[in-house]
């Protein structure tokens, strides 16, 4: 383990009584301070068990767990858990306690005074986007699923723990609300910087939430642990590749943005420019297409030399060539850009600035180049790891 390690599992093993094969076998795992580490794997791979070994909801059969350098394998598990936020899929709010009492559960056990508890509760409700005066005295049954899980997260944050364990926290929530809660949580985490272990079976959620992802196989063995970018670019083995499923390359494009590309320039002409000058620029550029811009320099139509030779000018040109269907901004991800490109009949997307003015174009070649680069970078990373070990 190194200095940045918050939780360190050292050859942690769990064998259930009466079972021959261990549920978790000699798992060694380092969770860095302030990161979201996602444990992801097929059902029954032991990822939830692993999570519950960390807060000793399940007692390990062997191995050691270090918590910020301190061996917690033998401390009182109840006291240990009060230092760790815990969020589960079923939420498990106490139905007979008000929202405020639910959130105050751990602070009360830690013996905080009333004033401190009540201001902490209000603060957390506020952070979660639930108006304190409205929600404090309500009961869980009055909440929607999304609101209930927000309270669940608030409750886990109650005593401001350094570490949070989250077991498929958004698994039972409808897709729209889930997406929203994920975004809210990522925004929150950017401020709080907690050390989070997050379990999910959904690779897309893992890619979205994880600073790093650990892909677990049977008996909770780590098949690959790395940043989502590198896992997508270069799956370690067939198991990981299968688990990521088809479209891993496509998913990798989520992490790259248009601003990182060397855009193709195209000859342009404005609507009120003389056609002849447009034709000259096009021929000089040796490109096949010219982009017609409006008076604000916003792309309007793709034109070929033939279109310019028809003898029409100005607005008349709008009947010819190809309509510009796909525009992306510079901060768009390559994934969204590809989507735009597929919609366009020309197979390329116009990049525009915030005011819609033409900046350049993205071609399919750009994407294949990025994909190759990502793979090479990942390969180089692994080669250097191998070289140093």
């Amino acid at each position, binding site marked *: 383990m190194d200095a940045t390690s918050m939780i360190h599992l050292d050859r942690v093993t769990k064998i259930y009584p009466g079972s021959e094969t261990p549920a978790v076998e000699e798992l060694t795992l380092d969770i860095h301070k302030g990161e979201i580490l996602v444990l992801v794997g097929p059902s029954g791979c032991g990822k939830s068990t692993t999570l519950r070994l960390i807060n000793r*909801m399940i007692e390990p059969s062997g191995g050691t767990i270090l918590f910020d350098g301190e061996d917690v394998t033998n401390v009182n598990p*109840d006291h240990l858990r009060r230092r760790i936020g815990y969020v589960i899929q*079923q939420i498990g709010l*106490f139905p007979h306690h008000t929202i405020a009492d639910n959130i105050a559960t751990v602070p009360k*056990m830690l013996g905080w005074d009333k004033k401190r508890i009540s201001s902490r509760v209000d603060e957390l409700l506020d952070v979660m*986007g639930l108006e304190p005066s409205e929600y404090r005295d309500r009961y869980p049954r009055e909440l929607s699923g999304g609101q209930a899980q927000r309270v669940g997260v608030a409750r886990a944050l*109650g005593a401001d723990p350094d570490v949070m364990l989250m077991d498929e926290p958004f698994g039972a929530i409808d897709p729209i609300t889930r997406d929203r809660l994920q975004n809210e949580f990522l925004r929150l985490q950017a401020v709080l910087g907690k050390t989070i272990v997050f379990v999910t079976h959904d690779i897309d959620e893992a890619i979205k939430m994880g600073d790093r992802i650990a892909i677990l196989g049977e008996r909770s063995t780590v098949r690959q642990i790395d940043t989502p970018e590198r896992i997508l670019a270069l799956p370690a083995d067939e198991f990981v590749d299968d688990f990521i499923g088809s479209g891993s390359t496509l998913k990798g494009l989520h992490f790259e943005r248009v601003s990182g590309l060397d855009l193709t320039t195209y000859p342009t002409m404005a609507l009120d420019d003389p056609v002849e000058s447009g034709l000259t620029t096009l021929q000089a550029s040796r490109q096949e297409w010219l982009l017609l811009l409006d008076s604000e320099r916003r792309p309007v139509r793709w034109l070929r030399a033939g279109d310019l030779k028809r003898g029409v000018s100005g607005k008349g040109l709008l009947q010819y060539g190809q309509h510009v269907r796909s525009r992306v901004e510079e901060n768009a991800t390559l994934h969204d850009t590809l989507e735009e490109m597929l919609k366009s009949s020309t197979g390329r997307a116009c990049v525009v600035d915030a005011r819609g003015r033409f900046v350049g174009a993205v071609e399919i070649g750009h994407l294949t180049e990025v994909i190759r680069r990502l793979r090479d970078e990942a390969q180089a990373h692994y080669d250097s790891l191998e070289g140093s070990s």
Partner: protein
Amino acid sequence: MSDSKETDGPNALDRVAIISAGMSGVPARVNHSLTTDDDATDLAVAAVDIRPSRKRPLGLILAPIGIIALATLLWIYYRSLGLDSGDNFQQASALDWSVKLWPQTVEQVSIALWSTVIVVLIAVPAGIALTRPALRRYGPAVLSIANVGQALPAYGLLVLFLLLLGQGLTTVIWALVLFALLPVLRNTMVGLDGVDKPTIEAGRGMGMTKLQALIRIEIPLAVPVIIAGVRTAMIINIGMATLAFLIGGGGLGITINSGLKLQQDPVLLVGAGLVAIIALSFDWLGAVAERYLKPRGI
């Protein structure tokens, strides 16, 4: 034996079902202004406001009115018998209020109350113990013993206790304890087992000790089911106390029995009427307890 188990279980649980049905009968109103953040998806999470109202259900108000009406009718009937006239000495002596009816009523109620209190003191802790992991495997065995109490004919059980403990009020109380143990024990176990497991896990996961989880989560959430069992036990005991006279335990059974033996229908009627009024009153008290001892929010 298993038959009795089948018939009692649904009885106790039905009550719970009826209560919860009553709760959901509260009209739900949709509140669109619950969340304060500005995302459009808020419409999707606009909560249905199902805040339970604390209004008393109609039944709780109507029942005492009915009981009072019944008592008034019985009193009018009692006055109309003309017991002071000296025409019917047997009747007058059997229905004497201060010598016979009132003391018997007190006996009837105290038999039922004491046996129920003892049942609760035994069955609730036993039910808690038998749902702990260490003792869980003894649960079925203990339940079947408790089942014996209820499966035996009431008369037989009383006579058995007479042989063991001799005549008197205490014997009756202990017999009734065995008789009414099952509903409370089983409802305690069912109630505790029925507590949502993730809720307990969330509590334990936040660092509650086993005892804290039991006291703060499991028991409060099981209270409605446990009280339903106590209510059943109470009603059983009120009714069974009528048989106490068989082994010298007193109670209104004496008056009813005199009415039968002397073929004096008015005596029979007054005795039975008083038992009915007591039973209905206690059932009403049980319903009130179920309603107001239930934790808020569930």
